[in-house]
C-alpha cells in the first residue's frame, strides 16, 4: 500500500488530480495574471497569461492606497475572530448537551437547528436590520458579529462529532469530579480540535467573504470589511479597474489561503479517539 514507485494506477490518479487542479485553479491563474496587467492590456482578443508590461507594482499600490487595506484586513480579522469565537463558545455546550445528556427538548432543538440551517440571512435580514436600528447597533462590530454568533452549522457538525465520542470518557470525567461545564472545557473541547478546525475553515471563509450583511448594516467605512472595501474597484457600468480589483482580491484572499494551509494539516490528521479500546 505504500508503494512509492509510479504504478499505472498512480499515474492515472496523478494525471486526474493535476488536470482537475488546473481546471479549479484556472480562474486564479487569470486573476494573478490580470493583477499584473495594465488596464488596456486586460481585454484583448489574444489569450495571454503573462502580462505585456508588468504592472504588479502599480496595481498593488493602487489596491493598497486607494482603500485603507490595513484597516479593512484588521476589521476582517476582528469580525471573523469574534464570530468564530462566539460560534464555538455557544455551539459546543449546546451540541454536547444534545449529544450526551438526556433532556426532553433535544428533539425540539434538533428541529430548530435544522430550521436554522435552512434560513438564509437574506430572508431575515430586514427584521434583524430594523431591530438593530431600534437598539442603535448599526455600524458597529456588534452588528457585524451578533447575527452569526449562533451557527446552526456548527451545532450540527459538533453534534455529529460528539456522538462518536464514547460515553465512558465522559463518565470517567464525572467520576474524576468534573462538573458538566468542566467536562465541556477540559474533555470535550481539547478533543474536538479536528472538528473545531474544520469548522473554523468554513466559518472564517464564509464571513471573511460575506458581502451581503456588511452591506446592510455598515455605512461607515471604519467598520468596512474586505469585500466592502473591494466595492471601490467595482461599479455596475462600464470599465472597472480590473487590474487593481484583482490585486486587491489577491491581497484579501491570501490570508485565507494561509489560514487554510495552517489548519488543514491539523484537521485532516484525523479524528481518532485513541484513549480507548477497540
Amino acid at each position: 500500500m505504500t508503494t512509492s514507485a509510479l504504478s499505472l494506477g498512480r499515474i492515472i490518479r496523478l494525471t486526474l488530480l493535476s488536470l482537475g487542479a488546473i481546471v479549479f485553479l484556472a480562474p486564479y491563474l487569470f486573476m494573478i495574471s490580470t493583477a499584473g496587467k495594465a488596464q488596456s492590456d486586460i481585454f484583448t482578443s489574444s489569450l495571454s497569461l503573462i502580462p505585456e508590461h508588468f504592472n504588479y507594482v502599480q496595481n498593488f499600490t493602487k489596491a493598497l492606497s486607494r482603500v485603507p487595506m490595513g484597516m479593512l484586513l484588521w476589521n476582517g480579522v476582528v469580525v471573523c475572530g469574534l464570530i468564530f469565537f462566539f460560534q464555538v463558545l455557544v455551539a459546543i455546550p449546546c451540541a454536547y448537551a444534545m449529544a450526551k445528556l438526556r433532556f426532553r427538548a433535544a428533539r425540539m432543538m434538533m428541529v430548530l437547528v435544522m430550521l436554522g440551517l435552512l434560513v438564509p440571512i437574506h430572508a431575515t435580514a430586514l427584521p434583524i436590520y430594523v431591530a438593530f436600528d431600534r437598539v442603535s447597533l448599526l455600524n458597529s462590530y456588534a452588528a457585524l458579529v451578533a447575527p452569526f454568533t449562533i451557527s446552526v452549522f456548527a451545532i450540527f457538525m459538533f453534534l455529529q462529532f460528539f456522538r462518536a465520542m464514547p460515553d465512558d470518557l465522559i463518565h470517567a470525567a464525572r467520576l474524576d469530579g468534573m462538573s458538566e461545564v468542566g467536562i465541556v472545557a477540559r474533555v470535550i473541547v481539547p478533543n474536538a480540535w479536528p472538528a473545531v478546525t474544520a469548522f473554523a475553515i468554513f466559518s472564517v471563509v464564509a464571513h471573511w467573504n460575506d458581502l451581503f450583511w456588511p452591506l446592510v448594516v455598515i455605512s461607515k467605512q471604519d467598520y468596512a470589511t474586505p469585500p466592502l472595501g473591494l466595492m471601490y474597484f467595482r461599479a455596475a457600468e462600464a470599465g472597472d479597474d480590473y487590474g487593481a480589483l484583482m490585486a486587491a482580491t489577491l491581497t484579501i484572499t491570501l490570508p485565507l489561503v494561509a489560514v487554510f494551509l495552517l489548519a488543514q494539516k491539523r484537521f485532516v490528521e484525523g479524528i481518532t479517539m485513541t484513549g480507548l479500546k477497540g
Partner: protein
Amino acid sequence: MSALSLRGITKSFGGNLILKGVSLDAGPGEFIALVGPSGCGKSTLLRILAGLDYADQGEILIGGREMSAVAAANRNIAMVFQSYALYPHLTASENIAVPLAMRRLSRVQRLPFVGSLIPGQRAIRAGIAHDAKEMAKSLKIDHLLDRKPGQMSGGQRQRVALARAMVRHPSVFLMDEPLSNLDANLRVHARGEIVELHRRAGVPTVYVTHDQAEALSMADRVAVMIGGNLLQLASPQAIYDDPAHIEVARFVGQPRINLLPAIAEAGIVTFGGIRLTLKNMTQPKARVTVAIRPEFVHISKSRHDGLPAHIERIEFLGSEVILHCRLDAIGETVIVKLSPAEAAGLATGAPVGLQLLPERAMVFAEDGPRLGSVVAAADAKREKTHG
C-alpha cells in the same frame, strides 16, 4: 452497618430486563469480585453504583447514606473502565493527576493561565505530580509518563487507567476488568499491587473480572451473576467447593466441572451405573444433575477399574494435562485433570476406567439449585456394560 449496599436494583434497556433485583452488601474494606458471563450486566451494575446510570428500582447506600440524589461527581467513587476511558489529549501523568487536581485545587486554581497566578497552587501541583509519579512507579509505567494514550500499547493504557483510579482516596473502588489486557506475568504483578492498595485504603471494592484465578485469589467474597440475578455471594472457597446453583458450578472452575444427567429417587441418585446416597433428600423421583470437578476424577489404565471410558482428546497445559474421556455407558464426556507425570503413557483412543470421588460429587435439581450433599457412594461399581 455495611459500607456499601445495594437493595433490589433492577434495570432494563428498552424492554429487556438486564438486572433483576440485585442486592449486595459489602463491609468496610471488603473486596468483592463480580463474575459472570459476558453480557450479564456486570458493567451495568457498576455504572449504576457509580451514579453514571440510574436504576429503575432499588436503592444504593454508601456508608449508610442514600445515594440516589447524589451526582456521580460527588459520590467520591473511583472506577477503572473496561474501555480505559483515558483522556486522549492528556499525557499519562496528566491523566493520573486529573482526579487529584479536581479535588486538591480550588475552582480558581484550576483555571488555565489565571490559575497559575494564584498563590499556593504551585506547591499543590507539585504534590499532585509527585503522587501521580509514585503511583505510576508501582504499576511500572513511570517511563511512560510523558506519552499520550495513542502512543501506548493496550496493556500500558490499562495500567494508566488503573493508576488514575488508584491514586485517589475514594470511598468505594470499582474496577471493570482492569487487567484483561496484560500478559500473564504483568497481570500477576498488578494483582499484587491492587491487593496491596486495597489493604492500605480499606474501602469496599467491587472488582469485575472474567479471569477466575483473579476472582478466586483476590476477593474476600465472590459474587456470581448470571442472567441478571446474583446467584451466589460467598467466599472463594465456598463458591468453588460448595456452589449453590448449577450455573455457578458450571461457570466457576477451569477446566469446566463435569455435569452428568441422573435420576434421583428417595435419596438415591443413579447415573451411568453409579448410585449415590444423598443427605436431606426427600423429594420424589426426579431428573437431577450430578457435578464433579475434573480434579476429583481419577483415571486408571484398566477400563475395569471404575467406569469404562475412552480417551477422546488430550490437552497439554504445561503443568497439567486435561483428558477428555467419553463414558462408554452413557456417551457423556468427562474431563479429567492430571499432572503430566500421571498422564504419561496415555494416548487418544485408549480405553480407561474412571473413578469419580463420590464425596466430591454434587447434585443439582433440574432447575438449578443444589440438592443436599452426597453422603456416600451407594454403589460405585457399574451395573451393566454396553457393547
